[in-house]
């Protein structure tokens, strides 16, 4: 594998970029309505791609400061993206290709220096290879359409300043609100037709390039697009924008703020005096629930289990300890010792899969497994906005691979790991917890077993 990559990259970038649309094609095949249009657009795309490649060549001649992560020799095309990325692409009309081509151009400019370092090794782990994506950490190369608020948000996301499914969702919607506020429909267009494809799409694409969109973000964006498409075309701009902003506010309030409050209250009622609550990493919902229970005057202890490299649990432990809650903190190596003391396990979620499995921060499955082994109830706190119709059986098919360099401890032995041949570091972000480890899922629409996730998801969608 690693050997076969450089030659293909060594060719003029045209080939790689040229492949890209057909790649995208594959993922779009299911979208039946796109099919006829695509075949027509194919030639056009091809031409555009060639033009882009030429431009890339020109760019490559200049000494460009490669912002790309060095371990990504293969051109990561948009087509390789998961269904989420594909979804957002689907809505794109061919006319927008000029803007979106920017990204592949960037990708091409990254790959062109490769032949100069022929021995560059592929540092990606084989069975996660389909998941690797370069992560943008600077603004260079960002499309000019990206709104400053979104630009800032993207960087905050890639640096984990805004981390967590719901936080990212709310921040994204707030940023999009500002995008909508500053939007004016160009003459000869309608807001309904123009906003989504010409304005929102580049924003979304930019955000996805900073860090893959969370499932809840995907849900919210789908909702927003639906809302935009429902706007009456004869409505004046100002009113339409006002209406959209209000709708966003209502959405955040209903699906997140109130939902959180309901879940926290419901979970707090499950915490009894003398309980020992074990939780993993940091979930804002778990934190809210624990704080609520504490404010209700319940006496209980909390054990926070944490792991490298993010150490999110430390923030949770800190904020709880500052409130005066008795907190014990340990890393995942102390899990099997501490699970015995626990009476309940509260877990946050990144998403709930339709087959009842929990998709959450990597390590959650271990906690649930140990809790199950020790016969401790596992309760998942999850807003319905995080439910998805997708299913997962293992953590490999769908995941997010964070940059491997996050694992390097400054000054440690790993500092020069890229120089060690055949050594790879792998840093997946999520894992999938089997449904049989979960006893209950607390949502704003009630407490359900994992088997009811698809039902709730369907009900939620029908309401829309």
């Amino acid at each position, binding site marked *: 594998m690693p050997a076969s990559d450089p030659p293909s990259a060594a060719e003029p970038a045209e080939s790689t970029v040229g492949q890209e649309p057909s790649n995208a094609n594959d993922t779009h095949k299911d979208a039946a309505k796109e099919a006829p249009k695509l075949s027509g657009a194919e030639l056009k795309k091809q031409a555009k791609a060639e033009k882009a490649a030429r431009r890339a060549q020109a760019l490559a001649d200049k000494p460009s400061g490669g912002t790309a992560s060095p371990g990504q020799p293969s051109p990561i095309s948009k087509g390789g993206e998961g269904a989420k990325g594909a979804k957002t692409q689907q809505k794109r009309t061919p006319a927008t290709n000029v803007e979106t081509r920017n990204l592949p151009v960037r990708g091409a400019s990254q790959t062109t220096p490769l032949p100069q370092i022929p021995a560059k090794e592929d540092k990606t782990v084989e069975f996660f290879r389909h998941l690797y994506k370069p992560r943008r950490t600077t603004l260079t190369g960002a499309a000019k359409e990206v709104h400053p608020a979104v630009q800032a948000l993207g960087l905050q996301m890639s640096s984990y300043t805004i981390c967590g499914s719901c936080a990212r969702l709310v921040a994204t919607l707030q940023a999009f609100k500002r995008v909508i506020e500053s939007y004016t429909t160009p003459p000869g267009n309608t807001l309904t037709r123009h906003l989504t494809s010409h304005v929102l799409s580049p924003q979304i694409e930019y955000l996805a390039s900073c860090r893959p969109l969370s499932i809840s973000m995907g849900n919210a964006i789908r909702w927003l697009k639906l809302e935009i498409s429902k706007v009456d075309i004869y409505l004046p701009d100002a009113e339409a924008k006002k209406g959209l902003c209000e709708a966003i506010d209502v959405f955040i309030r209903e699906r997140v703020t109130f939902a959180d409050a309901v879940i926290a209250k419901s979970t707090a009622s499950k915490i009894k005096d003398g309980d020992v609550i074990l939780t993993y990493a940091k979930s804002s919902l778990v934190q809210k629930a624990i704080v609520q229970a504490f404010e209700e005057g319940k006496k209980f202890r909390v054990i926070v289990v944490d792991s490298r490299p993010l150490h999110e649990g430390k923030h949770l432990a800190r904020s709880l300890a500052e409130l005066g809650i008795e907190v014990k903190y340990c890393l*995942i190596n*102390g899990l099997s010792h501490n699970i015995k003391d626990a009476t309940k396990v509260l877990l946050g979620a990144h998403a709930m899969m339709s087959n009842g499995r929990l998709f959450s921060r990597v*390590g959650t*499955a271990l906690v649930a*497994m140990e809790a199950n082994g020790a016969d401790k109830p596992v309760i998942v706190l999850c807003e319905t906005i995080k439910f998805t119709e997708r299913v997962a059986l293992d953590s490999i098919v769908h995941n997010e691979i964070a940059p491997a360099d996050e*694992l390097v401890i400054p000054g440690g*032995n790993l500092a020069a790991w890229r120089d060690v*041949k055949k050594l790879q570091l792998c840093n997946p972000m999520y894992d999938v917890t089997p449904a049989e480890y979960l006893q209950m899922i607390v949502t704003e629409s009630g407490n359900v077993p994992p088997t009811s996730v698809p039902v709730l998801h369907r009900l939620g969608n029908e309401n829309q």
Partner: protein
Amino acid sequence: MLRCNYRGGWTEAAYKKAQKNHSKVERSGRTVRQGSSEVEKQKQPVGRQSGNQRPLSKPQAKKPKAKIPTRNWLASVYITETETKAFHLQTEEPIFQKNSSAGLAYIECRPYCATYPSKFETCISSANGMAPAQAGYAPDLSAFLKSLKVQSLEKSIENLISLFKRRQIKNSRSCAIATAHLLRQVVAKSKWSDLGKLLERIQQVGQRLMEAQPREMVVGNIVRRVLGMIREEAKEDRNEEFSDSGSNSQKASPRREPSDLSLSKAGAVPPIGTFSPLRFESNIGPDATFESSSNDDIFGKNSRPPLITSHASYAVLNGVPVQQSMFNLLSTNSSPSSTPVAASPVGKSAPSSAAISHRISTATLDLKAEIMNGIEEIIDELLQVDEQIAAYAQEHIHSNEIILTHSSSGSVQKFLLKAAEKRKFTVIVAESYPNDHEATHAAVTGKTSQDEKSVDEMSVGTFMKPLAAAGITVVLMTDATIFAIMSRVNKVILATHAVIANGGLIAAAGARIIARAAKVHKTPVIVVSGIYKLSPDYPFEFESLIEYGDPGSVIGYDDGPLVDKLEVDNPLFDYVPPDLVDLYITNLGAHAPSYLYRIVADHYKPEDINFHKPELQF
């Protein structure tokens, strides 16, 4: 003080908890191994608040004191009292450290050692009065082995005890090698006229070593191995004597001398005729329940009554018709009593004293040489064990497998390297943060850690190359990702710290979740371990085997305000129950976990199993 509040702060609650543990120790009497005998002796925990304001005990200024940097969160106080009860800060349970002569007691201070090795060096040298060792690096195994040659025996023992206590030798293989070398010195240097004295001496030294690091079961194993080997030698030796004086032996009187040796206590009471299964069971002691429950197949086959000395069993084994009186005679002989004659039957009609003394001297000399040889063999085994285990590697690993391993271990690394000679596969290494991750990273990137190096220098100079250099793809991942990738893993290979007789093991913290995740995914778990790690101990409460490490590696000191409010714990080891293990690969071959008790029975003599706990011997 920041450091006292660190682990629950030694507040009232923590103290109560500790008291609870304390009483638990007293109740069960033997769950916590570290010197439960001392519990009765001293009820008052002296150093309870050592972390707080009050020092462990007034430094009495008899010995030069080392200046202790205040940053160290564990109080480290040198005292001159002979016996001191210290409080184990990290496990919240009292440990009792007995220190007979030099008087160097302290609370475990590994982080300190890591940070200020050179200062520690001075502490040791000044406290023990030994020649100042090479300044600049912490004393380790090789330094100890070098010092062994020049130091007096007692100083070496003290030195090793303090090295154990400070966890400056902590790798189980290093501990085993150090113990074996020290015991060899004990045999070589101490004056002993008969085997009883020697056994007693070794038991005494062994007990002190084990108390220094009660959770390092390997130390006890090596001591038991040496004891068993000496008994074996004695048995053979005496058998020769026996054949010489066989005609006389019929006359032997069943006289027994009261022995000061705990092991002979049991043997001394009943005449052999009254030997019964019941008796047998009680002799073995509750610690070895697995054995007593299966005594038929352990001892039935060779019909070796465990508490009768090995000599007797030997006679039986060889089909020598054993008469009642002769049996008694033999057991009298072999029971290491105060009788100076190791060889000649006690009741023999008096030969000339000159002949006896001559015989003693030659016999002792021979025996000494043989025993030294025996210990050398054990040391050789320790040095070769990894290669022996690795010899089985190619049977177990096939091409294109994905193998998950945890932490860094020389045994596992050699095992995988051996397999890599023939096959290509992928190894996923879980880094076992926060305790062994440095070593794991070093192993993965090819920088051998200090500890490993010292061991390797001693062996044939095999420099271990990193796995990646052998053409294997190595993937380093965090412990948390184990469940996520387990579905792709074909085999899990674990290293171990100690194996206990029920087939469970003590391994680096995190091993248990790995083993369980493997179980959930039906992935086979293979444990690679030398026989020397196999311990006859079988505690009911596995928690007592778990050592806790420096919480500072979980939350650093730079998080000062946070540290004050949190309880942080950092276990170093995990207990992995036998049902999570599929296979053990030892230097003797591959075994099912359920078979391990049998190997225990092969390697340790039942009378040695509880040698360090006289109260458990009847």
